[in-house]
């Protein structure tokens, strides 16, 4: 019935096909793939080869485009082509492909469509159990989704058809009724008309002939209203069969005549053959044997010409009875023999069909098992890929975490090292400065002790000697001179002691300091010896930033002091000159006088000169005394610059 509805739109479809064929040349990509699918659908009922070609092209293009939606649709198209060509196993495989893609895409409507398509194929294969399973799965999804409501009654009707084939008429009625309710709910009249027609036809099988008449009438009315006049004779013939069964032969005759006329007009030979044979039986029941013969023979002729075996057998059987009733036993025997032969043929055909169905069932089961194995393998492979990916990502993540940990530990260790270095440097500096401070403190204590004890005692000695000199006026001159000499010596010792204390408390002595000290000493000497002219010259090229250690400064100062003292004491010099000069390698100190000098060969060196030599050695320098009688004395100290601080 549904196929008939589609046939009515053939003209419209032709226009669509032409348009699609034209438009595909200007298309590419997704649009072209969609058009190829539509073309496959359109050609499925006309030219299967073209339909297959379009579907194959659509699959290839969708694969190339990596568009899963189009690929699923293309596999669906290919499956439809195989279904139409009777290659139901291939149809199953491609429907499964389509289902797999849609499942991966989580396309619920698409999954339900695939289930419905698989249900149809399994129905055609005679595997009703599997067919129903798919139909029910599709129904559950369609009912859950609030999308296209029309798919719910469609599946309900399909389920009804399967039950009808299994002769489960109650179940069939239940699902047809549910489909009808849905159509009514949405006031979808063509759906209502078709379903009512189906219910009417089903009621013939259940023997509810009044229901057949009722529903067929209602369907006929709706078809008439909607303009689907080609379907009216189906309803008419159903009503005729129902009336015939209810023994309303007259009314049944009228209805048969009307339906025969309509089928003749539509050139629907299959239904015409059936209607004529049924009408012939009706006429036989009404004892109109002549007319009955004519209708039965007419129906038989159409059946024979078109190889409608079941109608041929029906007609021959009726004719055999009719000839027997007419006492024409020869003909009756002849038709009986034909009936028997046809029965055998039909039986063989049915048997072959059963065997084919069994074979198909076996093949289907085998294919299902293969599909299941493939699906299991696919799932296993997918799981392996997922596991592999997880392993890769896990390893990467672990590597990143370990790398981060390494980097953070390295950074922390670096920070710790830097901190420890800084702390150690500070600690060392502190230790050094503590030692320096301690040393200075020790020096100060020693200095204080020297000053307070030895200095005080020396001062006491001087004071005692002065008291002795002035207390005892009548002392011999020799004693007084000796006392004065001891007093002067002690005073000198105090000076030297103080100088030592000064040097001790200086960690270093700069050149200016030394210069100032020497200058002070010369001024003092000048004030003590007014007849002698002193001079103190420092070469301007000497760097003022030159520093000496306290020991170096002390030794240089002592050598100069001793030399000047010697000149004053022994040389009777009129002029004493102290000069300091520098060249690239040496710093030189010269003390010259113009006094009486001495003969270096005949005079042995005293303590003073020996001390100066010793000090010069400590300084790492060169010490020379150049003297001759009446030509003055020169003392020269040369210090290598690199030995100075």
């Amino acid at each position, binding site marked *: 019935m549904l196929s008939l509805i589609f046939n009515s739109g053939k003209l419209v479809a032709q226009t669509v096909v032409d348009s699609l064929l034209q438009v595909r040349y200007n298309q590419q990509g997704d649009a072209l793939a969609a058009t190829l699918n539509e073309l496959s659908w359109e050609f499925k009922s006309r030219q299967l080869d073209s339909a297959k070609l379009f579907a194959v092209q659509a699959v290839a293009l969708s694969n190339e485009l990596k568009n899963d939606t189009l690929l699923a649709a293309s596999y669906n198209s290919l499956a439809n082509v195989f279904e139409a060509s009777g290659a139901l196993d291939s149809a199953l495989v491609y429907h499964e492909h389509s289902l797999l893609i849609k499942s991966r895409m989580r396309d619920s409507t698409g999954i339900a469509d695939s289930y419905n398509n698989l249900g149809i194929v399994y129905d055609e294969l005679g595997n009703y159990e599997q067919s129903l399973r798919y139909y029910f799965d599709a129904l559950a999804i369609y009912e859950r989704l609030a999308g296209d409501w029309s798919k719910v009654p469609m599946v309900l009707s399909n389920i009804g058809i399967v039950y009808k084939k299994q002769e489960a008429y109650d179940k069939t009625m239940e699902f047809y009724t549910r489909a009808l309710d849905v159509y009514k709910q949405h006031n979808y009249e063509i759906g209502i008309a078709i379903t009512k027609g189906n219910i009417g036809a089903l009621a013939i099988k259940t023997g509810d002939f009044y229901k057949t008449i009722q529903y067929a009438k209602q369907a006929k009315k709706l078809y008439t209203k909607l303009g689907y006049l080609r379907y009216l004779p189906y309803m008419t013939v159903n009503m005729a069969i129902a009336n015939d069964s209810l023994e309303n032969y007259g009314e049944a005759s009228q209805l048969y005549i009307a339906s025969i006329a309509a089928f003749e007009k539509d050139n629907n030979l299959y239904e015409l053959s059936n209607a004529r044979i049924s009408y012939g039986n009706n006429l036989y029941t009404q004892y109109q044997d002549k007319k009955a013969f004519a209708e039965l023979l007419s129906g038989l002729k159409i059946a024979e010409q078109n190889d409608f075996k079941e109608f041929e057998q029906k007609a021959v059987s009726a004719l055999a009875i009719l000839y027997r009733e007419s006492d024409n036993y020869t003909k009756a025997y002849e038709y009986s023999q034909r009936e028997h032969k046809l029965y055998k043929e039909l039986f063989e055909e049915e048997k072959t069909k059963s065997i084919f169905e069994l074979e198909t069932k076996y093949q289907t089961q085998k294919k299902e098992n293969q599909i299941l194995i493939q699906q299991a393998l696919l799932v296993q492979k997918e799981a392996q890929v997922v596991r592999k990916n*997880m392993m890769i*990502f*896990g390893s990467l*993540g672990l590597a*990143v*975490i370990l790398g*981060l*940990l390494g980097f*953070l*530990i390295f*950074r*922390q260790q670096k*920070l*710790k090292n830097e*901190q420890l270095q*800084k*702390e150690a440097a*500070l*600690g060392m*500096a*502190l230790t050094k*400065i*503590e030692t*320096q*401070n*301690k040393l*200075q*403190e*020790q020096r*100060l204590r020693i*200095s*204080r002790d020297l*000053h307070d004890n030895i*200095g005080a005692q020396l001062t006491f000695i001087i004071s005692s000697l002065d008291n002795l000199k002035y207390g005892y006026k009548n002392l011999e001159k020799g004693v007084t001179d000796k006392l004065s000499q001891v007093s002067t010596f002690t005073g000198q010792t105090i000076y030297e002691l*103080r*100088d030592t*204390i*000064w040097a001790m*408390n*200086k*960690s270093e002595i700069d050149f200016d300091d030394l210069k100032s*000290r020497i200058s*002070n000493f010369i001024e003092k000497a000048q004030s003590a010896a007014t007849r002698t002219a002193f001079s103190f010259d420092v070469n301007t090229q000497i760097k003022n930033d030159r520093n000496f250690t306290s020991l170096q400064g002390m030794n240089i100062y002592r050598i100069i002091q001793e030399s000047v003292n010697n000149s004053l004491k022994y040389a009777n010099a009129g002029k004493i000159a102290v000069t300091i000069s520098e060249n690239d390698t040496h710093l030189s100190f010269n003390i010259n006088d113009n006094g009486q000098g001495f003969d270096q060969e005949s005079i042995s060196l005293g303590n003073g000169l020996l001390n100066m030599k010793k000090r010069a050695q400590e300084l790492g320098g060169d010490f020379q005394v150049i003297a001759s009688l009446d030509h003055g004395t020169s003392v020269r100290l040369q210090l290598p610059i690199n030995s100075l601080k």
Partner: protein
Amino acid sequence: MTLYYLLIFFALVVAGVFLAFQKRNKRLNKAHKLIVDSLSIDLSLHLSQIEFRQKSLSAYDFLRYNLEEVLVVQQRVKIK
């Protein structure tokens, strides 16, 4: 979905490790600062003492021999 949770877990682990190290570094810096501050204070105390002493010694006029004024006991530094 599992990958999504794994990513979240991974991000949390990375953030956790990073934060733990940051916290530890902060603690180390704090302890280091305390040590450095303490050492710096000691150092500056010694330096100021030496500076004070040197200044006093430099100012000492040897010609007047008033050593007593210079050689004062240094109360601020404790020599170990």
